């Protein structure tokens, strides 16, 4: 099955990979807000995560209970091999496109 990956999904997937083993809905929301300075709603991040899980790019597990958040457990996400492959593929596609840009175009800026 050819699954495509959207721009926002790619960002979320990159962050899941970056925050290896520690990524959960709110942590990714925060990272997008802080690192990318983009305003984003929690629900759209969660939705992206669930869709990535449906596509098989990430796997979720429920963490242990902590005293924070009223004892509610976090759902942690981890990138799968398929997810890694998808990231690499999209990176290579970009690199290829980048390499097609003539040097002077960028220099003229």
């Amino acid at each position, binding site marked *: 099955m050819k699954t495509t990956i959207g721009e926002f999904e790619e960002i979320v997937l990159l962050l899941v990979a970056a925050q290896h083993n520690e990524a*959960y*809905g*709110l942590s990714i*929301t925060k990272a997008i807000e802080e690192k990318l300075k983009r305003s984003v*709603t*929690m*629900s*759209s991040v*969660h*939705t992206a995560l*669930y869709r990535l*899980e*449906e596509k098989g790019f990430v796997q979720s597990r*429920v963490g242990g209970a902590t005293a*924070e*958040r*009223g004892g*509610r*457990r*976090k*759902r942690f996400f981890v990138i799968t091999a398929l997810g890694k492959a998808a990231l690499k593929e999209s990176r290579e596609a970009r690199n290829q496109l980048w390499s097609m840009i003539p040097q002077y175009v960028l220099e003229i800026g």
Partner: protein
Amino acid sequence: MSAQSNILPPRLADRFFRFYCKNDLAESILGDLHERFFDDLEKKTASKAKFNYWLNVIRFINRHTLNRNNNPNYRRSNNSAMLRNYLLITLRSLLKNKGYASINILGLAVGLASCMIIFFYVTKELSFDQFHTKGDRIYRVTNTFTRTSGPIYWARTPPALAPSIRSGISGIEKSTRLRYADDHTYAVGDRIFNQGNVFYADSVFLQIFDFELKAGDKNTALNNPNSVVITEAMATKYFGDEDPMGKVISFDGRRSLQVTGVLKPLPANSHITFDMLISFETYVVPDGYLADLNSWGWAGFHTYILTTPNVDVATINDQIIKLYNENFNRANITTSTELQPLHSIYLESGKYTNVGESIHTGTKSTIYGLSLVAVLIMVIAGFNFMNLSTALSLSRGKEIGIRKVMGAVKGRIVFQFLTESVVVSLISLTVAFVLILASQSYFKEQLDIALPSSLSEYLTLLPLFIAATLLVGVLSGSYPSAVLSAFSPIAALGGKLKTGKAGAALRNALMVFQFFISVMLIAGSIVIVSQMNFIRNKSLGFDKENVIKVQVLREDMAKHHNALKNRFEQHSQVLKVSMCSHGLDGSSSSGPATLVGAPEDEAYQLAYYQTDDAFLELTGIELVEGRFLSKDFLSDSAAMILNETAVGIMELEQPLGTKINFNRIERTVIGVVKDFHFNSLHSDIAPLAIVRPFTNTELLLIKIAPGNVAETLSILENDWKSIVGASPFDVTFMDDGIQQMYEQEEKLAGLINVFSGLAVILACLGLYGLVAFSVQAKLKEVGIRKVLGASVEKLLLVLSKKFILLIIIANVMAWPMIYYLGDMWLNSFAYRIEMQWWMYASAGLVLLLIALITISNQTIRAALTNPVKVLRNE
């Protein structure tokens, strides 16, 4: 944060979230929402944080949160996991209770197999003549003659009818006659063949009916005189591997029939069967017949018509009646015709006499009877299943208790036990197929029920059988599962589980019903067998033992009668030889008789036999008055003998010497014989006249000495060959011919015997299971009774009295039904036995005996148990 920790997210928002999101994402999302809320509180005002919280909660409404079961892993596994668990537990409980399980499965399998066999039989009976594509437009024309004594229905009609219909009535596309060919010789070269099953048919016969031709043209094959169409099997018989088309069969040594068509094998479900069709143009009325092909009074031909589409059949019939009345006019008879649809000929020909040879009829009552038996057997098997499963449920109380504690709701338990009964019934279905395959040859040979032979025939019916089996499984599983799911877990785990009084009452009622059915079936077989014995042994008024019938061609009879008779009578093994027109097995000719001097319209219809003077002594028929035909009186060619019924019907006070116009010849009554049964015992004795042969008859009756029949036959055959030569020596026994009149009854008797046997076995299997169970439950009671001094006999009584009582109740309930049904069936015989008290009693006793044997094994073992063993645990 600590300062603000007493500020909590809005409760209403939480509730709202919990309201719409009920799946396992809820916890983590809510956790994230709360975390975010507390983050917000550090940077913003409480109201702003609360507002954001609400906003987020609302934004989270999407398909992931609304879906009740959104985790793909969860969704995939749980249902099938439970189902797998149910199957596992089913298997384990079957293996744990091997005895009960095999009783259950075997019982259900026998029930299913019986139903399937009956299903095959009934569908075949119902499928008769359905293969004709124009079948809904084909009718058989039948006659009704109404005399003062009542109507008589004749399936055959006169030869002039079909041609007049063809020319005179609109709405009829085609019409054909069919005439059974009496015995002729058929030969190819010098090889002579025995051949029955031959019809003369009009040229359109093959266009009306869909009997497929393998070779030849169905539009022209029967057009010309001396054409014959034969079946493939006959082609092989006559011509071997050669191409039969155009070949010639010598017919009676005088004519040559040319093969103009070869038929594919006829479907087994056709009411007409034939091996050969000869074109009607070939037909010649035999010497000595009183009528010709223009006759309207000679009802010896089948007439079939094909109507044009969408015509009013009643109008056509009216026209045919009109035509009939114009041509056939007898003073004291009203004639009418009836168009009988092709599809109802096979099953609804009961009222017709003179149905004719090679025309097959079935009986609806057999079909109804067997279908009823099938349902009853299935009910018994289903009840067994219900009883055993419910009884067994007591031992599964703990399992159900645990399941309920672990969260199984009632619906789940019901589902579990329905699954179980469906699994058991599917296993039974498999066993049923094995049983059918194993018993196939028995049913085919003994009861003439052809079961499908190829796998594909079974496969096409498989969905139907599976659906029926599932239905049986669900129906019989419904009660046990309802009972089991109603267990209170506390009672079940506390070990105080008892099925209520109502449950026991229901089980008893089911068992009474099973025995009710069994008693009825046993009594039914007893009644049928007694009636068949009665018929077999009833004095028919003549001696049927040791009489052989030799079929002789008319011309051979004319040429060789004296020589044959003289030669045969020389042997010490041959006691008497007589030529006769009929063999006392249901057939006879009939003709009008009027007293000389009486008006023409006071005619009586008399059956008649043509025979010679040896007949009386040969058959042992008693002479009441006067004398029999004798070669000493030449005048006997104009004499006649009457039977007592004829004397009674014609109201002759002084029969001897009375002059009667019979078949247009004036005859004098010279003797009266005692009534004898020349027809089947279904009907009363008809008025009969016996006269000297005025045509050549086709039968020689030979009375032979008892013992070493085979040797006698071979002596006779040698004589036959030396005198007659080529014609085949065609011998049958008179008592076989008589027996054949009761073929249907014999078949019914066989079927009822088999299936009532099965029903009893089933009921007893169920009884065995229940007794085994109830004895288990009573072991402690038995132990205590034994300790207190009860004897083994006393204990046996205690353990079995309930079952004996149930069987007695079932018997008493069944008696009125047995009487009603038995009497109804017996009424179809003019000569019948009366229902006797011993028939009821012996049915009951047989059942009681079988039941006692069934339970004795269990009860005796229980009564002999050492009380220490059962009481030790208390």
